[in-house]
């Protein structure tokens, strides 16, 4: 069995789950692909998942109402063991990458982390992933009765629905009590386009000048391009933008069709979060800024002049 752990939010599967199914189908061979849905009140998610595979395993219980790494790891490892899974596929989101190593330890399995390509090889799996702040693409491999793999969001095309809907099976999981208590959740939503799903990202750095200029230059540009807004660590630290918009080593990793970097010098820490974007456009007044080394198109000039001119052109 190939076990895909569904990522879902607000009663829907997230796009990355469709991408996991693509990865699963490509290596499944004769093994069935099962999607595991964890949570409480997940009927709509489970129903959506039956469009993607024959078998949907649903662990719906109050103890799983809120994501907790220990609980998720225990539930996934239990189902993987019961189903004799050869491969466990987890989304390479922040939470997926948090609990997947616990699953690997529980199953005594190798972990192939944040992969961008996956295939069977011998008695195991081979994959590709980025390392050294996304400056290197590594080929990795592991042989074991079961292998745990987290998949980088955006690396695979989303899977198409099947013609016939699959079956749902209830599973019951014994859960420990979470030892972590949490409170005061602050959800940082930014623009209507989320960074994770965006095809175009407009990101601003310190070179934009100020929070006010970010609002008057970067936000309208993002609006004009139907793009998500991104920011550098320096901009977030300065309080101009929320953490949810941060791109880089300590923020989000994105690989959109277009990444438009405005007033961003291009420290390695930032580049590691965006250097896999398909097309990189940079606007910066310093011709020696490292961002131009990873740019397809670059304009060396003042942000305050270039961005308004660009906006005017785009609105024509």
């Amino acid at each position, binding site marked *: 069995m190939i076990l895909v752990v569904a990522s879902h939010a607000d009663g829907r599967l997230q796009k990355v789950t469709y991408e996991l199914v693509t990865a699963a189908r490509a290596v499944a061979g004769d093994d069935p692909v099962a999607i595991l849905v964890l949570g409480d009140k997940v009927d709509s998610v489970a129903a959506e998942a039956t469009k993607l595979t024959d078998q949907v395993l649903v662990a719906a219980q109050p103890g799983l109402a809120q*994501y907790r790494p220990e609980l998720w790891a225990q539930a996934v490892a239990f189902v993987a063991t019961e189903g004799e899974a050869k491969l466990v596929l987890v989304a390479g989101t922040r939470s997926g990458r948090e609990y997947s190593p616990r699953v690997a330890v529980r199953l005594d399995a190798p972990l192939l982390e944040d992969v961008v390509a996956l295939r069977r090889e011998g008695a195991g799996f081979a994959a590709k992933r980025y390392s050294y702040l996304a400056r290197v693409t590594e080929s990795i491999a*592991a042989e074991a009765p079961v292998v745990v793999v987290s998949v980088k969001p955006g690396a695979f095309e989303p899977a198409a629905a099947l013609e016939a809907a699959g079956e749902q099976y209830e599973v019951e999981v014994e859960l420990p009590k979470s030892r972590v208590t949490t*409170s005061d959740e602050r959800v940082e939503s930014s623009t209507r386009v989320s960074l994770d799903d965006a095809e175009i990202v407009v990101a601003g750095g310190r070179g934009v000048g100020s929070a006010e200029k970010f609002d008057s230059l970067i936000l309208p540009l993002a609006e004009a391009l139907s793009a998500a807004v991104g920011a550098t660590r320096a901009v977030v630290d300065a309080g101009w933008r929320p953490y949810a918009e941060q791109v880089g080593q300590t923020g989000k990793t994105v690989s959109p069709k277009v990444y438009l970097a405005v007033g961003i010098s291009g420290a390695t820490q930032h580049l590691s979060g965006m250097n896999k974007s398909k097309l990189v456009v940079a606007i910066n007044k310093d011709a020696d800024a490292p961002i131009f080394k990873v740019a397809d198109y*670059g304009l060396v000039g003042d942000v305050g002049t270039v961005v308004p001119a660009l906006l005017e052109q785009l609105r024509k």
Partner: protein
Amino acid sequence: MKILTLVRQVPDAEGGLRLNEGNVDLTGAPLVMDTMDEYGVEQALRLREAAGAGEVEVIALAVGPAKNEEVLRSALALGADRAVHVKADVALDPVALSKVVAALAKSEGADLVLCGGRQSDWDSEALGGAVAERLGWPQITWTTELVVEGGTEPRTAKGRHDTERGSEAFAVRLPAVVTTQQGLCEPRFPTLPNIVKARKKELRSEALESFGVAPVVRTTGAELQPRQRLRRIVQVDGDPGASVAELAGVLRGEMGQAGGAQ
């Protein structure tokens, strides 16, 4: 209370990388303490300073080649009480390494293990969770605030950490594994007297063989910068008209494709 803080030696982020026979070759490359581990050392020292004298011991741990002693000496110079170096010439993947860290956390009687939220050589986020699972401990990742309450047991770690959609406050009874990130604290610089003092502090060496651990993931090859960029860089002097019009054309074309793909 004992705090075990992991320090890893990694290539300097702003330095270049070289390949040799399909693998990253770090021979002669400038190596530094992983930035996120600097936060771990600093936070351990702050927790020690916040507690009463003699109540907290900070132990720095490195697992790797002989050269790793440099980062342990740095941790000692910053203020760690003592250091443990597990000498390993074989490259371990995070899940394999977690076995060594967990074994030492146990033998040292650690209450709190600190490690980086993401290692800048592996680009991995797996170490904290893997160590916690081996110990049967809870984990808190991507921590931006951390205090420990309760002078004697039971102690509770409290603070804030980042989640998928934002951040939340947490409280967890120790023992626990906590992973660090930028923003948790601002690391101090070592002073000359402390660098001198650090030479006399205990730095114990252990052999990897005694931990019965072997890598489970093989690296079979590596490529540098596979993506070729167009590098069409235009200087905008005075009127940005022409160059901006060209860029707008490129963006419009991409938008058409992006929209069409949906």
